[in-house]
């Protein structure tokens, strides 16, 4: 939908009225917040960020090593990395990507290939310790696997980028979707793709399991009864990715992406290399997806083709749109919000509500619907996302002002 399609500013009916009222409320609240912000001293922002980062580090100490909340949190953080990666492609460069699950799959399979006994004829061990150092198969250090996955995924990202270069708008979406689906089909049917000598590409729905535990000197062992090391690992990854994203956004490349997103013809005529810029967006976004995939693979300790569904791509896309497309903090907020809803609120919290009221009613059957309803609600009330990109916020408020003046003219 585009800007040249003005709906009636004051809908006459009940639904429209409700929506307008609710939106007004959020605007009022935002005004209050801005007023408070003005009164604070200048450095408050960076102090606040520093405190927040420190709080993130000590957070797991307040929860038991096996708590459901901690588990939901570290999965949410993995989704934050995914969302930040997809945000580069969809948010910055404006290339709608519906096949992001492909990079989750490739990352997770990198973990499985390079950190298990799956390649049973190889004996390759690089910087690993413990059981992994004696087993058959390829066993690389976790950091090496992260790097390898990032490289492989960025190459695959370029591969998917190539056929979309001539395409426009949402055609890109369907080609990326097709690519994602082809990768998942390959994952499912990997058992019938032989690599020679009884070795197959994947293990399909049976999964490749018993992946190596990440090993870092000084942190101790990683296992599922001790969630804190996993939390710190993904937290550090999130901070690194966040830093890279913030630097990218304001870099020459980041500005080139935004320019392409806003007006391709104008951007190209200003000397922005179209092919290279777009391919960089795909490959960088894919690399983040791969990194997160490696982590999730290691955390779940098994890589099963059932994990890679189209719904996953949609889930990550929903995160960045709910958060506010193109906005880095929006991607973080959206990813945390939606994955908490999906992994904590719906399974752990909401399900106990009917019981608390003494009702014998199982809400798990409604979890899909609740999630869908929340998506609709958030989007209708805040179409621009929870934390909109600064540039877009300016555009939107500008547009609303223009519309209001039109309305006055008509009424007179």
């Amino acid at each position, binding site marked *: *939908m*585009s*800007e*040249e*399609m*003005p*709906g*009636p500013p004051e809908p006459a009916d009940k*639904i*429209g009225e409700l*929506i307008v009222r609710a939106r007004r409320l959020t605007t009022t609240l935002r005004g209050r917040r801005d007023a408070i912000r003005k009164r604070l001293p200048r450095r408050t922002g960076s102090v606040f960020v520093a405190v927040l980062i420190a709080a993130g580090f000590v957070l797991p100490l307040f929860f038991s090593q096996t708590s459901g909340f901690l588990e939901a949190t570290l999965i949410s953080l993995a989704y934050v990395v995914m969302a930040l990666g997809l945000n580069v492609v*969809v948010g910055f460069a404006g290339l*709608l990507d519906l096949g992001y699950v492909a990079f989750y799959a490739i990352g997770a399979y990198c973990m499985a290939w390079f950190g298990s006994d799956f390649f049973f004829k190889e004996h390759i061990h690089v910087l690993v310790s413990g059981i992994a150092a004696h087993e058959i198969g390829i066993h690389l250090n976790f950091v090496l696997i992260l790097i390898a996955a990032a490289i492989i995924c960025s190459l695959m990202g370029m591969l998917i980028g190539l*056929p*979309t270069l*001539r*395409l*426009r*708008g*949402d*055609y890109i*979406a*369907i*080609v990326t*979707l*097709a*690519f994602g*689906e*082809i990768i998942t*089909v*390959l994952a*499912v*049917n990997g058992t019938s793709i032989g690599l020679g000598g009884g070795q197959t590409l994947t293990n399909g729905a049976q999964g490749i399991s018993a992946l190596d535990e990440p090993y870092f000197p000084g942190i101790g062992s990683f296992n599922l009864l001790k969630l804190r090391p996993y939390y710190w690992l993904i937290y550090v990854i999130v901070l690194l990715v966040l830093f890279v994203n913030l630097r990218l956004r304001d870099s020459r490349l980041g500005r080139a992406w935004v320019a392409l997103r806003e007006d391709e013809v104008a951007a190209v005529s200003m000397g922005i290399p179209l092919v290279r810029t777009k391919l960089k967006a795909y490959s960088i976004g894919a690399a983040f997806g791969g990194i997160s995939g490696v982590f999730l693979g290691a955390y779940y300790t098994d890589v099963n083709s059932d994990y890679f569904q*189209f719904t996953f791509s*949609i889930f990550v*896309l*929903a995160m960045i*749109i*709910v958060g506010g*497309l193109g906005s880095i903090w929006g991607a973080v907020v959206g990813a945390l919000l939606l994955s908490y809803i999906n992994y904590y609120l719906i399974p752990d919290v909401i399900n106990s509500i009917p019981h608390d009221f003494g009702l014998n009613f199982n809400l798990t*059957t*409604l*979890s*899909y*619907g609740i*999630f*869908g*309803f*929340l*998506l*609709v609600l958030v*989007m*209708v009330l805040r*179409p*621009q*996302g929870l934390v909109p990109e600064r540039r*877009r916020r300016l555009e939107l408020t500008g*547009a609303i002002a223009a*519309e209001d003046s039109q309305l006055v003219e008509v009424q007179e």
Partner: protein
Amino acid sequence: MAAVAERPLALLRRYVGRWGLWLALAALPVYFGIHDLTHGYQAGFVHGHEVIRHDLSNLGFNLVEGLSNGAIWAMIAIGYTLVYGIIELINFAHGDVFMIGSLTAAGLWGTLGLGLATGPVGLTAGLLLTLVVCMAVCGSLNVLIERVGYRPLRNAPKLAPLITAVGFSFILQNVGLLWIGGNPIGVNDLIHENDTVFHISGVIVHRADVLALAVMIPLVIALTWFLGNTRPGKAMRATAQDPEAARLMGINVNSTISLTFLIGGMLAGAAGLVYALYETNVWYFQGFEAGLIAFTAAVMGGIGNVRGAVLGGLLIGCIQEMSDSRLGPQWTEAVVFGYLILVMVLRPRGLLGEETREAG
């Protein structure tokens, strides 16, 4: 201009640009046809011995099945293509509206008491009634979704309604899940779908094939007539081309968009009924896969283009059927999407070209 010595590479590129697509589309049937003729195929058993035949009737059978299966995708794809053409939204909820259509049909047959024993007159009357009800239910459902989920977002960023569409898709899937439970449930084979109606030189045509095409073709003709000749149809095309100009010409853009959703939903309802008869089972998750395929069909044909959506649907049906029976169903999805990527690379605007704002 005298093109004296065109460089071979450029010549090749032009050649691929012009004929590559047709070569690619013809590749599968031609390969399988030659394979059948030279190697033969197993056509059944007589007295415990395999019967090997060397003709094209197996391929023909694949294509007939593909066309009828594709007719269902075509009806869903039209809904996608109309909606995309008019508000540039990939309506992810559309596949689930189709699923609700199937469930409505299956539920209504139970209520009406249509079963295997119902006579032909009762059956025809019952099916027609169900068709009308399904189309009405899905049409109004689609209009309702548009009113609640998409209209408030007219001025929002382009991708915002995409997420409400996903939200509605989840809600409808949940409705389906609560309605019939998590497993596919069987539907009475009301029309005896596997009875042979006729055969042409060895190619068997089943009742289900006739039904699918008999529902799809009149609806598509009616729709084409409606879009081309009536005032509301013209209003739809005008709005798709330029909503602002259409509004200035006195067209009520909002009600035109509602009408588009109504028509898309009605076709999805009809498709839902045909699907229930054709597959003889319904499932709450069927809409997801169907939606994906139908969307692919719409894009393949050229988005916004009704004839393109029909062509895309029929083509995908044929590709699926050939891949199902010869390469194995587990590869079908990859084959379909591989074809899609090929079409997009060779014809970036779809087979028949798009009819949307920027193209117009």
